[in-house]
């Protein structure tokens, strides 16, 4: 069973992420759970900034119209359509008639039409989705460099996408896609004790950051907050109970008054 790690600040997550991204960790699935304002998105942007250039980083935000088609489209377009010949061939067998394939990117709408058709029953839709994602996995498996695929705001993903991520995507990452690392972050996340892939995932719960010293160091590095004295920073952290979003908001208000 996976172990939960509660951390005082966000350095451990970054360290493990970097190990995973470089293929130096035995897990390739990272789950990040945290209430709103705990700094998930900020943490993910740090992942992105620090991710080595040799690793391709693909971000996907579930707060758009979060379909499976949108996810497939994002990954294919980000990694380059030319890298997905099997997927494209399969897509063409389902998309016929007047659909234009000349654009550089493959639109989510095109994939959605291929999966759902206009009057297909659920069984046929399932068949098409299976065929398409199998082709997608076949292409993804052939990549020789490391890839990081990040899903943010997971709680906003619709039921179909969440089911697919938990039953198909994470299982395939564990079993077949040895060069792929995936991070899922949100207010809610897939069950880290999942029978199939739970043993190969590293889950984190983001809690308030009460480490006053870490906050003071954080302020010292930023021009807008660097003039704030240490006791003031400590007071703010205590008052905001280490809730990152509130700490930042209070810091911002106080810093403005300070400079005024």
């Amino acid at each position, binding site marked *: 069973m996976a172990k939960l790690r509660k951390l005082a600040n966000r350095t451990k997550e970054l360290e493990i992420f970097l190990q995973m991204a470089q293929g130096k960790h035995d897990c390739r699935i990272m789950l990040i759970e945290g209430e*709103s*304002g705990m700094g998930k*998105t900020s943490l993910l942007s740090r992942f992105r900034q620090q991710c080595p250039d040799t690793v391709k980083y693909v971000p996907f*935000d579930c*707060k*758009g*119209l*979060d*379909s499976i*088609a949108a996810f497939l489209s994002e990954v294919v377009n980000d990694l380059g359509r030319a890298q997905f010949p099997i997927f494209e061939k399969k897509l063409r*067998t*389902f*998309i*016929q*008639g*007047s659909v234009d394939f000349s654009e550089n990117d493959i639109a989510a*709408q095109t994939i*959605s039409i291929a999966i*759902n*058709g*206009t*009057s*297909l029953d*659920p*069984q*046929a839709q*399932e*068949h*098409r989705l299976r065929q398409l994602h199998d082709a997608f996995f076949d292409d993804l498996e052939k990549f020789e460099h490391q890839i990081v695929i990040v899903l943010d705001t997971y709680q*906003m993903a*619709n*039921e*179909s996408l969440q089911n697919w991520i938990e039953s198909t995507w994470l299982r395939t990452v564990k079993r077949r896609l040895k060069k792929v690392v995936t991070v899922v972050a949100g207010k809610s996340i897939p069950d880290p004790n999942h029978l199939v892939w739970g043993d190969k995932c590293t889950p984190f719960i983001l809690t308030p950051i009460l480490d006053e010293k870490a906050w003071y160091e954080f302020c010292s590095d930023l021009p807008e907050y660097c003039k704030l004295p240490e006791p003031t920073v400590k*007071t*703010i952290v205590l*008052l*905001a109970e280490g*809730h990152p*979003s*509130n700490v*930042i*908001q*209070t810091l*911002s*208000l*106080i810093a*403005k*008054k*300070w400079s005024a």
Partner: protein
Amino acid sequence: MVSIEELLKRVQQAETETERQWILLELQMSQMPHDLVSMLWAAAIPHFFDANILAALRPELAEQADKLYEKLKTLTFVEEFPKQGYNIHELTRNVLLNQLWQQDKDEFLRLSERAADYFFSEKMSSEEDVEFCYHEILNEGDAQTGRLLDRGFDWWTYNQIERLQAAVQGFREHETADRLDAFGKGFSLHLQGIVKIRSGHYAEAESFFSRAETFYNTINLKNPRYITTLLRDIGRSKQEQGDYDSSVYFYENALLISEEQLGENHLDTSFSLNSLAGLYQNKGRYDEAESLYLRALKIREEQLGENHPDTATSLNNLSGLYQNKGRYDEAESLYLRALKISEEQLGKNHPDSAISLNNLAVLYQNKRRYDEAESLYLRALKIREEQLGKNHPDSAISLNNLAGLYENKGRYDEAEFLCLRALKIREEQLGENHPDTATSLNNLAELYKSQKRNSEAISLLERWKAIKRKRQETQNKSYADRIWTLGKLYEKCQQFPQAVAAYEETLFLFNHLLDPKHPQILVLKAELARLKKNMKKVKK
């Protein structure tokens, strides 16, 4: 201006996290210009915004929308929303929405109404389409224009389940914040039921429908279409489960309400009439079905015009019924009218015209007017291949029909070629275990049987049987008949144990499905006895 000490004191005194967040936000807003604050409240209403949305939400600030949009983007709690612009971070947005709902509910509803109108006219992307419903539901309880229902209707018709699911998710967000009235709660449950029907979870669907009905019953529904649609959806759920009696009850109730509250000639009444007629037709109650179809047709002719595509659909329904009853001449005249409408209104190469051509061709085939049937099938096939694609499932329907015709005419080679193409399309496009693939396997098996290619027919029928078993579609007469055919084929190939097994399975099913004295049971028993006797002789 609040001093630093005062600020820290107020933060310290906050009793809840939400209160603390509001204090901080309010202080931040107190330092912003009035116009920016006003726009910030508006920007919290939708899930995402750009300058156009802001201008629509605050028409009085429309001229400054671009400038204010740029300023909003710089705020710490504003982030990028993929492909749509920006959004306020969930935490801050919820604080703003809760405050606005508590402080000025009318303003909240006014902004939501403007958002609904904006997204109703845009709805270019899926997000915008879904966003419309998210805002509309808050005002529809009072207005009841029916726009919300129409969106659900379209999504159902075009199989856009992802949009239905996303809309439900948005409604849940309102519900958690206690912003839905009884109408909103009812409609949200109705939509959740529709999502469940699409995935075949009928019990869950009906539980949602029943709860939706309870909410609708507590209010004065100004637009009865909401309740008639709900009743038809319950009826559909019952019908898809084969519970025809319950289905009739709900369809009849829907019809009664349509007639009484919307009028005998309302389009909604035609939907109720059609649902009920389709059910009667399935049950063989042709006369009742005919009278309902005729009424539905009359309504559509009057309300939409004699040449409207929906009128053509009604004509097609009625013709199908006449064909069932063997009234071929009347069916032909209606099919010809429907075809003319499709060709004139939608174009000679429109896929709907192919449906009409196909229907007419089936009729001609039944009347043994094979040459005319062939020409129409070929025209339908050409349209489908050109408009939908050579491997489209609808093209496979045309191939199958044409193959059936060639088989009738003894042109077995051509029939086989077409059957094989149809089978390949269905396997690829719909899946190896899809019911339509099973139909293709069965058709091809029948063709091989006619040509005495028995072992090939057996292998296809075995695949067909496996699909039927997997789908648990074995407790019916047509399945039993095919298994009997399979037994006969095995016997012809001298595979006697397999033949006995098939006959015994058929007998087992007949014993459950037919009267014990049914002639088929007697014949089958005799065949089985004869076969077993022969097998003993061979053994000796």
